[in-house]
């Protein structure tokens, strides 16, 4: 059996291996030496204080410094203790790091990896610590990946650190304790390549990040009642694997998106728009989005289910789209 490890250990292995391989990789963040989050555990002992820096609580400052250091030839990894801290330094990510290469007419490279361990909602943290804000970054053109499995955690983190552009990697709270096989040695999951987690013929479910295992469970459960659900994990949100999505929807004719970001202008909205524009004649049913509600995540666990996307909602959505079998215009036109 392939070696098993958990998601957090996989992230750590990716970082340690990359720091051994490439001395330009340096880490900066809050409480990274003592590794509050666990990814950087052991870095200080192995690589010394010039490779791992505990920054004061100055996100704009150290994120901007990472940009400058990257232009100077280093490959900084910035760890955010909490995903919403990206709001604090939004200017330095989207208006500086991401834009500078374009605005400088292609001069230079800005290989910064921003890692957000424990992203998204965690029980009891309420509204200011819980957003999954990747759509905002994507709108600004920032590359974003969100691994759902330990293997992809290692593979995508490594790919992000080797990318010559800024990349944000979300490591969702709901995924951090996942266990699974992780390849030893050098291992890369390429950006922009999705993975079919469950093959099926009736409906395509695009599930993102922490919702991938939930969607797989729903697919398995519904198999028993004769509904064949295909689950696609895009893994990388920007770039996005439109090809695999299109192939899947052309086969199933139905699309449900299961996403932990907000609804308005969210990832699910973007995927829906793509399908409506490009796959109109392949669809037999309306596209359905299961997303967060556009309110802050409430503190009480009694009501968070009304805000966060849930497997029951996915199941209901699948039943809903299965109740449609609209005239397959594409098939008719091609005759």
């Amino acid at each position, binding site marked *: 059996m392939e070696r098993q490890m958990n998601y957090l250990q996989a992230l750590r292995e990716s970082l340690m291996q990359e720091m051994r391989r490439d001395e330009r990789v*340096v880490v900066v963040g809050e409480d990274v030496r003592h590794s509050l989050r666990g990814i950087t555990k052991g870095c200080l002992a192995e690589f010394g204080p*010039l*490779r791992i*820096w505990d*920054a*004061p609580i*100055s996100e*704009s*400052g*150290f*994120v*901007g*410094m*990472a*940009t*400058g*250091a*990257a*232009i*100077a*030839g*280093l490959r900084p990894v910035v760890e955010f203790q909490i995903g919403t801290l990206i709001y604090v330094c939004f*200017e*330095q990510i989207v*208006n*500086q790091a991401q834009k*500078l*290469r*374009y*605005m*400088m*007419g*292609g*001069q*230079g*490279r800005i*290989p910064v990896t921003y890692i957000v361990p424990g992203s998204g909602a965690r029980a009891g943290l309420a509204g200011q610590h819980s957003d999954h804000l990747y759509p905002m970054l994507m709108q600004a*053109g920032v*590359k974003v990946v969100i691994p759902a499995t330990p293997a992809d955690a290692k593979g995508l983190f490594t790919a992000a650190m080797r*990318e*010559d*552009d800024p990349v944000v990697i979300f490591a969702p709270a709901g995924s951090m304790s996942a266990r699974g096989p992780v390849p030893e040695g050098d291992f890369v999951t390429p*950006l*922009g390549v999705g993975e079919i987690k469950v093959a099926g013929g009736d409906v395509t479910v695009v599930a993102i990040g922490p919702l991938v295992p939930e969607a797989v469970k729903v697919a398995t459960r519904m198999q028993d009642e004769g509904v064949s659900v295909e689950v696609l994990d895009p893994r990388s949100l*920007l*770039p*996005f694997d*439109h*090809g695999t999505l299109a192939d899947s929807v052309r086969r199933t004719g139905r699309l449900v998106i299961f996403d932990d970001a907000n609804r308005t202008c969210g990832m699910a909205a973007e995927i829906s728009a793509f399908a409506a*524009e*490009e796959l109109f004649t392949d669809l037999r049913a309306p596209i359905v989005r299961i997303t967060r509600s556009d309110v802050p995540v409430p503190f009480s666990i009694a009501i968070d289910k009304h805000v966060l996307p849930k497997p029951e909602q996915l199941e209901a959505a699948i039943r809903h789209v299965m109740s449609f079998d609209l005239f397959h215009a594409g098939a008719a036109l091609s005759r």
Partner: protein
Amino acid sequence: MQNSLLTSPTLAVDAYRRMRIIRRFEERVIDLVNANEIAGVTHEYIGEEAIAVGVCSALRESDVISSTHRGHGHIIAKGGDVRRMMAELFGRVTGYNRGKGGSMHIADLSLGIYGANGIVAAGVPIAAGAAWASVIRQNDGVAATFFGDGGANQGVVHETMNMAGIWKLPILFICENNQYAVTTPVQEATAGPGISTRAAAYGFPGVRVDGMRVDEVYESVSRAVARARAGEGPTLIECVAYRFQGHFTAERALSLTYRTPAEIDTWRAKDPLPHWAGVLEDAGALSADQRAAMDAEIETLLDEATQFARASDWPQREDALADMYVTNYPGLPAKGAAWNAK
């Protein structure tokens, strides 16, 4: 004076030359904006030339600077090519940024110019990042970051000064106090005894110098550079100066009254160019005739730059989507009319 510019006549004369190029470049930019040959917003550096030249005269080519929205002077002082600068202002593909940046974004990484910047003080942590890289690689590279009296009040400047202080980064914080953040006087926007004194809070030296005097700036910066190269950390240098023009070229049309003609005249009397020309003449480093010849050469250089810009090609359709990423992927960057582009 141990660090006087005059101890190196070559450097001293070159300082005049660069100040003169900046002055005349900017005066030409005003004309070209008024003639609608340059689009968008430009911010002239006229009156502040001694700062950029004083600072950059004390730096090596491999040292890094980050600049501001009022950046032309910094680029020229650091060795930038006026032809490629002018072409950028004209939006041409031969410009420094291939026509994608314009006046507020000119960069030349090969000269350590990490760009002018359209967001006030946003370049400060970026320059500090280059200084941080010098610490990590244990080399003696230095960075200097320019910001104004307005920029001094951005939070990120304080964040960066704090980190520069704790990590002893080899960086110079060059505050160009030109008295106004657009129309807001520095006294109304600055608490405490003044910008230079803020360095004390972060544990490194802060000095105030006459930003209209290139030798004073140079002397102070030279000391700070030596300190930074020796691993002793940052210095904040507040250069007190004045912009002779408005905040931006088109300000004239707004008939603003935040400055009196008398105030402007008082500062114009301290013009850094005639002053330095006089010092060089007195020292026998550059006679009036030599200066006139140099000025004429500069006019030729700038004529050529403008002709180069005018004659250059515009960027093409494919350039609009290029340079966003080092590594592109299918569908990236997304096109606005994807269905129409196939």
